[in-house]
């Protein structure tokens, strides 16, 4: 295994990946290639998917196929991350000023790497439209803007402003694309989600053609140590397919699982049912449950829903484990009442919605969810992976477990009430929150936290507001560690 992959968060986040390594370690299925074509083509697109589904990787892959990164391309494309803290709290004219300033600076940076064009700093939408039009005319190419981290669950303040700008910037010469999270439902009064954009879902399901092949190619590219010779009890393809299915097709979860296997199984040992059992158990304990804790302070007014999501997960996995089902059909009255906690569980990778509406045997209609197999294994009698368990979980077309309208399962779960205001609690937490832990496996060391605290950085907000130079000036913190702080802050603040 590449040492860099273990020691940094780069392995988990496409947007932090070194551009020269990107193509080597990011693999795409035929379905992904269709999505990339939509990102390259004309027309506004919203790319929707949970954490770690690969939205950023798709946006970056699209940008790499466009000028200036691909000089011969007949379309220009610029990837713009909207991870800019001031944007979170602003709206209206202030949001427009910050957005235009930030985006014009990022476009300027991107063009500096291969195009002779002086993109002027902009402060409002009229200026940036004029500059984009001038850029398009000068290059003789259509321009695609690929906005990453554009809209988050629990961060509604700026959404109407963003979608207003998204719509206004789109023209014959400029195509806007943006990555958003499931649960983003507020698009403002001027933006009609069906008429002003095409929504593309990034979710992957084992039922899709190419699912197993995709995860095998990722495994081969990033983890060559996992070979067919080391695997016992099944073929390499099935091993990759099963590991992909355990994390509901989530690429980040899959990479975490492969890393876990290589970290916890000796190189001389084989990879079979025992190794998978240990891996899935550790993922449940060290990855999924801590993820709910990590998400809680980022949810703004939906923070109370995180505790409900935890309770909901306990109930669902208990029932499914006892019945040995990996899918659950939940009556729509429950889905409506517990919508936000279910969205949080989807975001954190506990569940994946496979069908929005399906007839229930017990009457009425419900939403069908698949559950991750790591948390499910915790609740299966014996908690051990066996060949028959793999067969059962990978089989398609099995009847789901049903939670019907009058079911008692959710009777003790109260409907969460959104809190007043939408302040993000993460900013006011002490910097110790970022210490290496299960929630932050690539977090900060005790020594560095002590040094930062001594230099006056008390809260996460203080670190987020500091410049790279200010952090570099702190004792024991150099340029490389500044990047690590930025990566941890990225994980802490953004989804």
């Amino acid at each position, binding site marked *: 295994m590449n040492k860099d992959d273990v020691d940094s968060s780069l392995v988990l986040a496409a947007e932090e990946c070194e551009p020269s390594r990107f193509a080597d370690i990011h693999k795409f299925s035929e*379905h992904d290639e*269709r999505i990339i*074509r*939509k990102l*390259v*083509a*004309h*027309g506004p697109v919203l790319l929707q998917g949970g954490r770690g589904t690969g939205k950023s990787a798709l946006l970056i892959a699209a940008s790499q196929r466009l000028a200036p990164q691909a000089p011969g391309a*007949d*379309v220009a494309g610029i990837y713009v991350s909207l991870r800019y803290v001031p944007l979170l709290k602003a709206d209206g004219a202030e949001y427009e000023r910050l957005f235009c300033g930030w985006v014009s600076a990022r476009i300027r940076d991107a063009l500096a790497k291969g195009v002779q064009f002086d993109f002027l700093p902009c402060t409002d939408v009229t200026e940036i439209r004029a500059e984009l039009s001038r850029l*398009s005319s000068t290059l*003789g*190419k*259509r321009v695609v803007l690929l906005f990453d981290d554009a809209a988050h669950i629990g961060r509604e303040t700026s959404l109407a402003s963003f979608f207003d700008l998204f719509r206004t910037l789109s023209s*014959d*010469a400029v195509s806007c694309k943006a990555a958003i999270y499931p649960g983003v439902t507020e698009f403002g009064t001027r933006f*009609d989600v*069906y*008429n002003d954009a*095409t*929504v593309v*879902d990034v*979710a992957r*399901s084992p*039922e*899709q*053609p190419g699912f197993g092949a995709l995860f095998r190619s990722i495994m081969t590219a990033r983890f060559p140590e996992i070979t067919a010779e080391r695997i016992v009890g099944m073929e390499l393809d099935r091993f990759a397919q099963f590991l992909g299915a355990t994390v509901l097709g989530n690429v980040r979860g899959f990479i975490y699982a492969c890393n876990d296997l290589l970290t916890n199984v000796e190189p001389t040992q084989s990879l079979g049912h025992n190794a998978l059992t240990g891996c899935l158990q550790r993922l449940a304990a060290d990855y999924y449950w801590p993820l709910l804790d990590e998400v809680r302070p980022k949810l703004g007014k939906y923070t109370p829903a995180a505790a409900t999501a935890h309770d909901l997960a306990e109930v669902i996995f208990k029932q499914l484990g006892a019945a040995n089902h990996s899918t659950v059909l939940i009556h729509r009255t429950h889905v409506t009442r517990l919508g936000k906690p279910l969205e949080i569980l989807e975001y954190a990778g506990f569940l994946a*919605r*496979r*069908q*929005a*509406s*399906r*007839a229930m045997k017990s009457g009425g*209609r419900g939403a*069908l969810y698949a559950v991750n197999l790591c948390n499910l294994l915790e609740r299966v009698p014996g908690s051990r992976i066996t060949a028959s368990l793999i067969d059962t979980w990978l089989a*398609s*077309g099995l009847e789901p477990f049903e939670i019907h309208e009058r079911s008692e399962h959710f009777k003790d779960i109260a409907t969460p009430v959104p809190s007043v205001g939408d302040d993000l609690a993460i900013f006011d937490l002490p910097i110790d929150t970022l210490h290496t832990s299960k929630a932050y496996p690539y977090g900060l060391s005790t020594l560095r936290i002590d040094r930062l605290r001594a230099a006056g950085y008390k809260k996460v907000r203080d670190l987020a507001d500091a410049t790279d130079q200010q952090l570099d000036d702190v004792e024991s913190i150099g340029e490389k560690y500044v990047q690590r702080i930025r990566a941890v802050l990225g994980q802490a603040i953004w989804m």
Partner: protein
Amino acid sequence: VIAESKVELWAQDRKPEQMSRALLGDYVDAVVWQPAFEAFLDACAKGVLGPRASVLRGLEPKQFLPRTRGLAMKTFSMASKGVHHEFVLPHTSYYDDATVRVLVEDAVHTCADLGVVASCCEHMPFPLSREEALTIYEDIQ
């Protein structure tokens, strides 16, 4: 084909002639498309379908027609540049390879989506069987 949207479909003072029969309008959606889409979703549950069906399976019955209508309108609008006076960009910068390919895909998929769901409508004369419609739909993907 596409009628103006009504806020309240079944207002008591609305006369029958004010209720549009547009194929992709809100009234036909309520009476035909939504029940047909529910039947389609239930038919999907019995088999294994590809990525396109996965997209449709993620939609609520109320979302199917507005989404399809939006996609059809966007595809028509984008594919008709050059017919209208606002065409000011060179063909090569607007109709690049990726855009043309996506436009053709979207047009085919929009027709396929409407076709497969229509085949699940109980009021449709001479429909394909659901199994046959789903098989053809899968082949189109």
